[in-house]
C-alpha cells in the first residue's frame, strides 16, 4: 500500500511538473502594430514613432504603419509604450494575459494608447 501511494505521488508530481513547464514555457508571438485602426466605431490614428517594451525585453522602435514581431513566453505579460504627445513624453503601461492555445496575438498600439477595448486580439495565419 505504501509503495502504491509513493508511486502515485511521484506520478502526480511529474504530471504537475509537466503542466507547469507547459504553461510557463509556452512561447507566443505578439505582433505590435502601429497602423490607423477602427475599434468599437472609433478611429485611432497611427503615431509617428513609438518605443515599445514587452516584459523585460529590449525597447523597440515602431514607426508609423509598421508592424513588428515580438516573441514572449508564458501567459502573463506587461507592455510599456513610450511616445510623444504634442512634445510631451507619455508612458502607457498595460498588463495582459494570453491563452495557451493561441499562438499569435495582434496588439494595436494606437488602440492601446487611446484606451480602446479590443487593443489586443488573437491573430491567425491562413494555412
Amino acid at each position, binding site marked *: 500500500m505504501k509503495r502504491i501511494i509513493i508511486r502515485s505521488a511521484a506520478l502526480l508530481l*511529474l504530471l504537475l*511538473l*509537466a503542466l*507547469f*513547464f*507547459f504553461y*510557463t*514555457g*509556452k*512561447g*507566443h508571438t505578439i505582433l505590435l502594430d502601429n497602423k490607423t485602426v477602427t475599434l468599437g466605431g472609433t478611429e485611432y490614428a497611427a503615431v509617428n514613432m513609438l518605443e515599445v517594451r514587452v516584459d523585460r525585453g529590449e525597447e523597440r522602435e515602431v514607426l508609423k504603419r509598421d508592424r513588428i514581431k515580438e*516573441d514572449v*513566453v508564458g501567459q502573463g505579460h506587461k507592455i510599456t509604450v513610450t511616445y510623444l504627445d504634442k512634445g510631451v513624453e507619455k508612458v502607457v503601461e498595460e498588463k495582459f494575459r494570453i491563452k495557451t492555445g493561441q*499562438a499569435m496575438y495582434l496588439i494595436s498600439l494606437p488602440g492601446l494608447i487611446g484606451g480602446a477595448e479590443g487593443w489586443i486580439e488573437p491573430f491567425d495565419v491562413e*494555412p
Partner: protein
Amino acid sequence: MKKPDRKSVIFFLESNAVPILFLIIISIGVPYSGFSVDYLVQEIIIRLSRNSFLVLSLLVPIMAGMGLNFGMVLGAMAGQIGLIFVTNWNIVGLQGIGLAMILSIPLSILLGWMSGKILNMAKGREMVTGFILAFFMNGVYQLVVLYGMGSIIPIGNPSMVLSRGYGIRNTVNLINIRQTLDSLIPLKIGNIQIPVATFMVIALVCLFIVWFRKTKLGQDMRAIGQDMHVAESAGINVERTRIIAIIISTVLAGFGMILYLQNIGTLNTYNSHEQVGMFSIAALLVGGASVNKGKISHAFLGVTLFHLMFVISPMAGKNLIGQAQLGEYFRVFVSYGVISIALVLYAYRKLKEKERAGTALAEAQEEK
C-alpha cells in the same frame, strides 16, 4: 603459477591498453593539428558537457553484468520524440528541456522494459542482442516519425512537417532550447567558457550513480554482475533486477540525448540517435572501462580522450597528408576499432583468468 601482481607494469599496461593507446595517438596528433591549447581545452569542455551524460548512462547495466548497453539508442529515440513534441508545442527555454525529459520518461521506461525482457531471453549475448534491437527499433521509430506524425499524431507546427502533409522533416531546428542550460550560469575563465549548469546536472547523475551503488538494488545488481547463478541462489530476483538496470540506463540515455541536442541546437530526425550508442560506448571503452567494469572516472577520461582525437584528427590528417577527409575516416575507423579491441581484450582476459583459476585449482589438488 604466481598470481599477477596488480601493481606490476605489465598488469597495468594490460588493464589500461586502450587509454594508453589513445594517449599515444593524441600526443602524436596534437602537434600535427596545430591547434592552440585554449582551443583544445574549450573544445574538450564543450564535448564533456555534451556527451558525459550519455556515457554515464551506460554504467548501470555494466554494474548488473549486462555489458555495454547498445540499446541506449532506444532512450535516445525517446528523448528525440520528447524534443519533437516540445518543438511542436513551442515550449521555450529550460521548461522545454524539462518537459522533453518528462515526456521521454514513459517512452524510455516502456522501451527499456521491452529491451530488458528481450535481453533476459538472450543472457550472455546481451550486447549483440542490444545492437540488433537498436536497429529494429530504429525502423519502428522511423515508421512513427515518418508516417505517424502529422497523420495520426497531430503536429500543428507546419515548419516541422514534410510538404506532403505528414512526417517530420529531416532537420528540426531546436532554436527554442538551444544551449539554454549551457548558458544558464555563464562562467568565463580567460578565453574559456564553462557551461556550469550542465556540469551541475552531470554532477547530479554522478551522485545518483554513487548513491545507487550503495542501495539494496545497486548491491543486488553488483551481485548479479559478479555471478548471476550465485545471486539467484541468494534469493535475488535476477530477471527483474536486470530489467530495472536497463530501464534506468534507457531513461538516463533519453535525458542525455536531450542535453546533447540542446547543445547542438539541431535535431537530425532520422540520424541523430544512430551513432550516439556507438560513440558513447567507444568513449567509455577509451576511458579504460570494459564489458564488466565501468567507473565514473572512465566516462570522463574516455570522453576527453575520444573527443580530443575527434577534434585533432581532421587537421592532423590534413597537415600530415594534405587531406582532412582522412581524419573523418580515421575517427569512424577508430570508433569501431576501439570497440573491437576492447571486446577482444575482454575475451582474452576472461580466457586468461579461466586458465589461472584452472591452474590454481590443479595446484591446490596436487598439494592435497
